[in-house]
């Protein structure tokens, strides 16, 4: 049985996008700074390894905002794997490509797990992550912590109830690259139940 794992690039101060993110400016003001580490995604080393793991997932869960801001991935996130978009309101037009819309978070998690088979499910977007966390359906967190403070923007961890959730560090990968801006810390945690 595969795992549902959040993959998210986040600044040290906890932001996944800069201020005023929109369809026209999907990462918000200055938010593309977070993705500098992806310049190394095809290199050998930790960042290449992590990116390859992302691309090996067999299903995707995304929030609606992330999905729209990403131009609906033209219907294909990677390799045509099923993409489950968690949304309050299903759009009128039929979903493109391998996209499916789901309104219930538990239903979404169950469908994604079934679709992934023995593979893992990748979660993308702060909204989907929060919904899965609240529903107790997230198994792991893989955060790519970028050495920058954005100051303002959209937070990854927000709108969560009070109450401590214990984690266990599964691994920490830190690439030894020359460029400090690309020296992210990949932290993977298992969520205790």
């Amino acid at each position: 049985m595969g795992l549902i794992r959040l993959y998210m690039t986040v600044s040290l101060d906890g932001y996944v996008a800069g201020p005023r993110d929109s369809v026209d400016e999907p990462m918000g003001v200055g938010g593309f700074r977070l993705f500098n580490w992806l310049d190394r995604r095809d290199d050998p080393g930790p960042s290449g390894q992590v990116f390859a793991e992302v691309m090996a997932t067999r299903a995707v869960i995304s929030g609606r905002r992330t999905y729209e801001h990403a131009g609906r991935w033209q219907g294909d996130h990677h390799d045509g794997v099923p993409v489950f978009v968690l949304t309050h309101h299903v759009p009128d037009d039929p979903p493109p490509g391998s996209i499916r819309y789901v309104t219930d978070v538990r239903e979404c998690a169950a469908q994604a797990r079934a679709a992934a088979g023995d593979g893992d499910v990748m979660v993308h977007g702060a909204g989907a992550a929060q919904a899965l966390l609240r529903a107790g359906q997230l198994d792991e967190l893989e955060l790519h912590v970028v050495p920058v403070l954005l100051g303002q923007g959209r937070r990854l961890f927000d709108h969560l109830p009070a109450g401590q959730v214990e984690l266990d560090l599964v691994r920490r990968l830190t690439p030894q690259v020359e460029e400090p801006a690309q020296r992210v810390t990949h932290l993977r945690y298992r969520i205790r139940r």
Partner: protein
Amino acid sequence: MSQAVLYMSMSLDGFIAGPDDGPGNGLGDGGHRLHEWFLTGAVTSHREVVDRLDGVNREVMDELMSAGAVVVGRRTFEFAGGWGGDHHDGVPIFVLSRREADAAMRWPAVTYVRDVADAVHSAKDAAGENDVLVRGAVTARLALAAGVLDELQIHLVPVLFGRGCRLFENMPPDHIELELVRALDGPGVQHLRYRVRTEG
């Protein structure tokens, strides 16, 4: 060369205290979870805390305790009862405050300062070759904004709090570039040390 270093235990979701922090509940509800990596049982002094640790966690706490001066916000200072006037080894303590000090919170090693840059500069002078320990979230944010914080030593604790008091809040929308200078895995905590980049 003396560095001003923030040492702060933080949950993975960015909290440094639980909800409803206040006098007598300085870490908020459940906030003591963040200090479990170094606090084992009842202790009476910072030195005693360190003496009970070993390995990576000991190494990091030894660095903290080698600071030659402390800069702290008034709120953190008062919640801690002013550490009885002695944070460790009697080093000078500079308390950032806009108000006059209470008579009960005056000690020989304690100086009240209004401006964060003045506080850090005075502390560096007092610390000589040693580092300056910066304590408190508000003080850290003021020091960052004033460009006088040199490093952040984040003790990242594997827990989500959901609610509470965040380290990074009410900041201006300006990017501050950091450089990861060290990452250490201790039992129950990751120690991430960042240098604030001032060039380019």
